């Protein structure tokens, strides 16, 4: 593999000859790497911001291995820190212009490390060891605008580890400033040097059977595929995960199903729709179907509305004839104003046409309502001014919408009315006050009590008189009416007089009830043979005050105990014996006798006085009694 030197017996070898042996061997190794095109960074040398505190340097990981284009090996076993503040010439890499940036290139290159110095035969100092080593080089490109600043070209005998960006005022190199896209990574062998077997391939047809050609063919196919110019997929060949209402598992099926579903009657229900503000009607979030339904409802409600659909002022209208305004509201107002106009110049009636009307003896000519009204007025005035022969009453019909008459014309109706009126009243031509009553005749009425008379007198609410007649009695009632089952008050107390065939009764009601059937107090005079009585019989809460008294005289010759009494009859019969009788004296003898009541009944009580009365002396008591029951 290497060029060889054949040292021979008893050859006196020189330094150059020995060095040549190593050089040829080393050249063979380097040529092997160069021939195989092996170069680039095998591992390590990965850049990162300086740690622990970033500054204008970067750190490189170790161990790092690489080969340059000459096949020389580059290696460092410990981490390296590279300052980016200056380049390999010591020139600062700062960016001076705002809005600009500068790219640096951090390169790795081969270097010999000389060591073990010795003195040769010429008394010259030489280094016995020349080890393989490396050095890190920072190069800077020209400053340029952000995004367009140039980058350094790759160096033939160096390997680019990374690009570093410098910015104005920068004090730290951060991860975002380190770019490894151009890093010269390890290349083991050129693709064009590696063959491939293409016999079983269906799609790829590389120009030559090499990896490079095969990759070029793949790139061409992918480029054409991605650009859509060649090898496009049928949609049936693209998988689709079923989702929502789409159950197909290919794009073709999914698209077809989507189109079909959306085109179906229920398609609108599959499309969502967000809420939309609006006034007066917003749309709630939902689907297109729900929103269309809502809109249809609103539209139908609007179209079908019989009121408040639009302000008429929002509907335009073309001016016409004497209506000069341009919307419905204004035109209606103009029309109303025109029709309501009662002025002489353009009265409303003159705006309304009317056809000719046949008739006899008068015919109405065609014209306007105004002209026909005027013609009617002329005719009517002429008719009214006729004194005697305008009409006989028998030629004027009576409509009698309420059906109160038998007659069909005015003459017969007047006769009928006068017949009814004259039955119980005097007529004006009978020399008696017109309308004065004769005997009042009434037919049988319905109900339990028939109202015969209802008089309001002076109109005072509490003095309304009603006269009723039922099967037995005549009732004269003040301030109440019969509602069919009971008496109903108008206001305050109620008084009544009932005259029956066997009873005469005065009645009074003073409770707070508004309707009643029992009177709170009554004076009843029974007048029939079975229970006749000369006194009123009372009911309810009653009282009676009357006068009573007794006087007695002692004609004896000595003082003695005297007692005298009588019976007091009540003027009316109480409903029961009173529960209280009070005696109030009006006049009495000086020695007031003791008074007492005894044996009390509903008709009266026994009243007595007693006292010790002196000889030839009087003893008496006169006063009022008040009985309460």
């Amino acid at each position: 593999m290497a060029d060889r030197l054949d040292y021979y017996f008893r050859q006196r070898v020189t330094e150059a000859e020995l060095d040549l042996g190593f050089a040829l061997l080393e050249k063979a190794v380097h040529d092997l790497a160069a021939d195989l095109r092996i170069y680039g960074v095998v591992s390590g040398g990965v850049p990162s911001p300086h740690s622990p505190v970033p500054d204008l340097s970067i750190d490189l990981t170790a161990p790092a291995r690489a080969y340059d284009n000459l096949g020389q090996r580059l290696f460092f076993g410990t981490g390296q820190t590279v300052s980016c503040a200056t380049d390999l010439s010591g020139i600062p890499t700062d960016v001076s212009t705002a809005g600009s940036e500068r790219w640096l290139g951090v390169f790795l290159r081969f270097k010999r490390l000389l060591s073990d110095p010795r003195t040769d035969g010429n008394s010259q100092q030489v280094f016995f060891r020349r080890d393989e080593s490396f050095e890190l080089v920072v190069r800077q490109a020209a400053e340029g605008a952000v995004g367009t600043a140039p980058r350094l070209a790759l160096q033939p005998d160096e390997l680019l580890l990374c690009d570093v960006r410098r910015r104005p005022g920068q004090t730290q190199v951060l991860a975002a400033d380190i770019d490894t896209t151009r890093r010269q990574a390890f290349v083991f062998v050129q693709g064009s040097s590696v063959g491939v077997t293409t016999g079983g391939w269906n799609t790829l047809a590389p120009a030559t059977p090499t990896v490079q050609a095969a990759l070029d063919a793949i790139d061409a196919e992918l480029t054409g595929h991605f650009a859509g110019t060649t090898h496009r997929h049928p949609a049936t060949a693209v998988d689709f995960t079923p989702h929502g209402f789409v159950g197909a598992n290919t794009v073709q099926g999914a698209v077809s199903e989507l189109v079909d579903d959306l085109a179906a009657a229920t398609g609108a229900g599959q499309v969502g729709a967000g809420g939309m503000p609006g006034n007066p009607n917003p749309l709630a979030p939902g689907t297109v179907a729900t929103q269309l339904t809502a809109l249809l409802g609103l539209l139908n409600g609007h179209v079908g509305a019989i009121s408040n659909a639009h302000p008429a002022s929002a509907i335009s209208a073309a001016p016409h004839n004497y209506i000069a305004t341009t919307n419905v509201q204004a035109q209606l107002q103009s029309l109303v104003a025109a029709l309501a106009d009662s002025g002489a110049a353009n009265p409303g009636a003159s705006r309304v046409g009317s056809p000719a009307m046949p008739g006899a003896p008068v015919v109405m000519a065609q014209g306007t309502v105004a002209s026909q009204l005027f013609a009617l007025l002329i005719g009517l005035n002429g008719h009214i001014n006729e004194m005697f022969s305008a009409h006989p009453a028998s030629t004027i019909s009576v409509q009698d919408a309420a059906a109160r008459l038998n007659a069909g014309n005015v003459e017969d109706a007047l006769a009928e009315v006068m017949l009814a009126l004259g039955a119980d009243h005097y007529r004006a031509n009978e020399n008696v006050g017109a309308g004065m009553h004769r005997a009042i005749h009434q037919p049988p009425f319905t109900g339990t009590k028939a109202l015969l008379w209802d008089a309001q007198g002076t109109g005072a609410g509490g003095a309304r008189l009603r006269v009723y007649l039922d099967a037995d009695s005549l009732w004269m009632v003040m301030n109440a009416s019969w509602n069919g089952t009971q008496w109903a008050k108008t206001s305050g107390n109620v008084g009544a007089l009932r005259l029956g065939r066997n009873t005469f009764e005065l009645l009074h009601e003073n409770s707070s009830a508004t309707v009643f059937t029992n009177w709170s107090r009554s004076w009843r005079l029974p007048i029939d043979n079975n229970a006749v009585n000369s006194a009123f019989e009372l009911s309810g809460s009653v009282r009676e005050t009357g006068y009573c008294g007794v006087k007695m005289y002692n004609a004896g010759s000595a003082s003695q105990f005297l007692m005298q009494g009588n019976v007091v009859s009540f003027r009316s019969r109480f409903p029961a014996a009173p529960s209280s009788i009070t005696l109030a004296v009006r006049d009495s003898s000086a020695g007031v006798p003791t008074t007492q009541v005894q044996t009390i009944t509903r008709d009266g009580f026994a009243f007595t006085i007693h006292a010790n009365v002196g000889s030839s002396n009087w003893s008496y008591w006169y006063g009022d009694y008040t009985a309460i029951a």
Partner: protein
Amino acid sequence: MPIEELTNEDVLQRCSACQSTARVRLATLSIGVGSTLPDDVDGRVLRLPKCPTCKAEEFLIRSIDGQPMPTPGNYAHLHRLLVDQLHAQLAKAGRVDKRLGKLKLSELTSANRKEFFPDGLKLPATPPEKTVRAL
């Protein structure tokens, strides 16, 4: 001169003649009105003291069993119940004329008390004489 209120101790009396009121202690009352003669006494009658203002004198008469009663709830009915209860309380306490012996009278039933005197033995109704004067 009806009575308007009855307690265990006294009775409130309103004079029919002058409308003044006075409380009369039950201990001063006794059932029975009559003279000093042996048989001259009416056991249904109770004499109240004379009105301190006008000297009018009231007699309260209790009802007889079977006697027609006024319309329940009206003034006459309530006053009669009150008078009967007063008689019953006095009889129970022995406040009876000696000539009448022992009297045992029925007191107001609890049902009647609850129905007609829910707030105590008071007359809620307006007496006729007051109504007349008010009108």
